[in-house]
């Protein structure tokens, strides 16, 4: 009965008079890791501003912000971010944090990716062995990055071994787990992913695999309804020592997922998984 009464109360409760709220268009990689659930309540407690996160691929997130359906944008593809600002849709891009990409595959590693010295070499071994590779194919930041790496390695990905699935990181990981395929994932989603089965990290730590996140405000000159003041408070807070500290403190299974880099002097002190992997 307690269940029913609580349900009824919630159903007919008029939405609590929300003071101020902003919409943040962001990526599945940050949402799936649980970062926002850790970070945003701290921000809301300090400022009274609620942040509504719409988590989609970087490409789609940028479109949402371009249409004026968000107040701020937190994504991870530098070239697209710079284009977004250059085209006048966004203002005040700031560095927030980074983590890195890892190449994942079945523990048995039939293509022998594990012994690779460079990312290019790792991709070459997958191609040479014609092993199944799952590509996001959804114009997300991870997908754009992966395409860039294939191009850099000068490998044509037009065989049946290369599968573009047009889905999020989680779906790609689920598919790789089910088919013993290789794929590239951001470290955050990988560490918080629950259905790893036979998969493991086979290659990591090269500087090419760095994955930086940037925060951009939607330009109020193009979208006058955007709450730029509140969005700027979010940007100020996230890049402040308090916000950066909180990002550094975020753990999944006792591992740090994101390295704050808004304040360069703090950066060197922080322990970062990608940095340690490089050593």
């Amino acid at each position, binding site marked *: 009965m307690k269940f029913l009464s*609580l349900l009824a109360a*919630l159903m007919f409760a008029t939405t609590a008079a929300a003071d101020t709220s902003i919409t943040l268009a962001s990526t599945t990689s940050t949402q*799936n890791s649980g970062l926002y659930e850790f970070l945003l309540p701290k921000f809301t407690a300090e400022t009274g501003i609620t942040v509504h996160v719409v*988590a989609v691929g970087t490409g789609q997130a940028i479109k949402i912000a371009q249409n004026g359906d968000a107040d701020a944008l937190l994504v991870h593809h530098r070239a697209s971010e710079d284009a977004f600002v250059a085209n006048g849709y966004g203002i005040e891009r700031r560095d927030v944090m980074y983590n890195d990409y890892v190449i994942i595959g079945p523990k048995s590693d039939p293509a022998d990716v594990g012994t690779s010295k460079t990312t290019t070499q790792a991709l070459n071994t997958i191609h040479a062995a014609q092993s199944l590779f799952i590509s996001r194919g959804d114009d997300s930041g991870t997908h754009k990055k992966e395409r860039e790496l294939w191009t850099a390695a000068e490998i044509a990905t037009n065989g049946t071994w290369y599968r573009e699935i047009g889905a999020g990181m989680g779906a790609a990981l689920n598919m790789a787990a089910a088919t013993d395929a290789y794929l590239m994932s951001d470290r955050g989603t990988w560490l918080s992913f629950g*259905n790893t089965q036979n998969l493991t990290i086979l290659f990591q730590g090269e500087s090419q695999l760095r994955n930086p996140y940037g925060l951009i405000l939607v330009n109020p000159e193009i979208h006058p309804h955007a709450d730029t003041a509140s969005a700027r408070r979010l940007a100020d807070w996230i890049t402040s020592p308090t916000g950066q500290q909180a990002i550094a403190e975020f753990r999944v299974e006792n591992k740090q997922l994101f390295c704050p880099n808004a304040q360069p002097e703090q950066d060197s002190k922080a322990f970062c998984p990608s940095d340690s992997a490089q050593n």
Partner: protein
Amino acid sequence: MEIFTTAIGLILSGDKDLMTIIALSLRVSLSATLIAALFAIPAGAALAILQFPGRRMLLVISSAFMALPPVVVGLAIYLLLSRSGPLGTLGLLFTPTAMIVAQTVLIFPIILSLTHQAVQPLNREYISLFNALDTPRFLRIRTIIWDARFAVSVAILAGFGRALAEVGAVIIVGGNINGLTRVMTTTIALETSKGNLQLALALGLVLLVIAFSVNLLTHTIARMGEKYQTVRA
């Protein structure tokens, strides 16, 4: 077996986040069903009773729209409600209202077509009586809807089931925002993408239990209605 324990545990835990999600699911889908039914039932009955040019065409169109994919509805509503779209000034995108609009559009043709099917045989039965009494159109529609109320309630249920179960439209127009527009189906999609398959399946069971309860309730009401009719006769 573990899934069942997880599912039962989830329901019994009374976890506030989960309750918010279930409550929003019900609020959105019930609102959409109510609004759609309010217009679709009279429209469906009118299509069975009234004769006018283009009636057949409307019927064909409404049956065809029963096959409308939720993502397409979601996308259309998204473009309409986006700040850059024609209704952008309303600021409704990524709100529960947008989700209600999308589900209403999605289930309107379902309720309409099923009502039409339920009402048509009754109309054939009643038409000579109606004509003999020179019954006004409005009264014909009202009488027939009332007499077909049990079949019509099945049409409403079908619409509600579709609304409650769909994920394609609400995830596009709602954005799956935690605590604001996250419903059962979008939670299931999210948990699946996180690889929490057990939890996702358990949530699916919870959804099924809710759908089952709503159906049971409606059938009980229908049974009571039948008894009442028999007594009256």
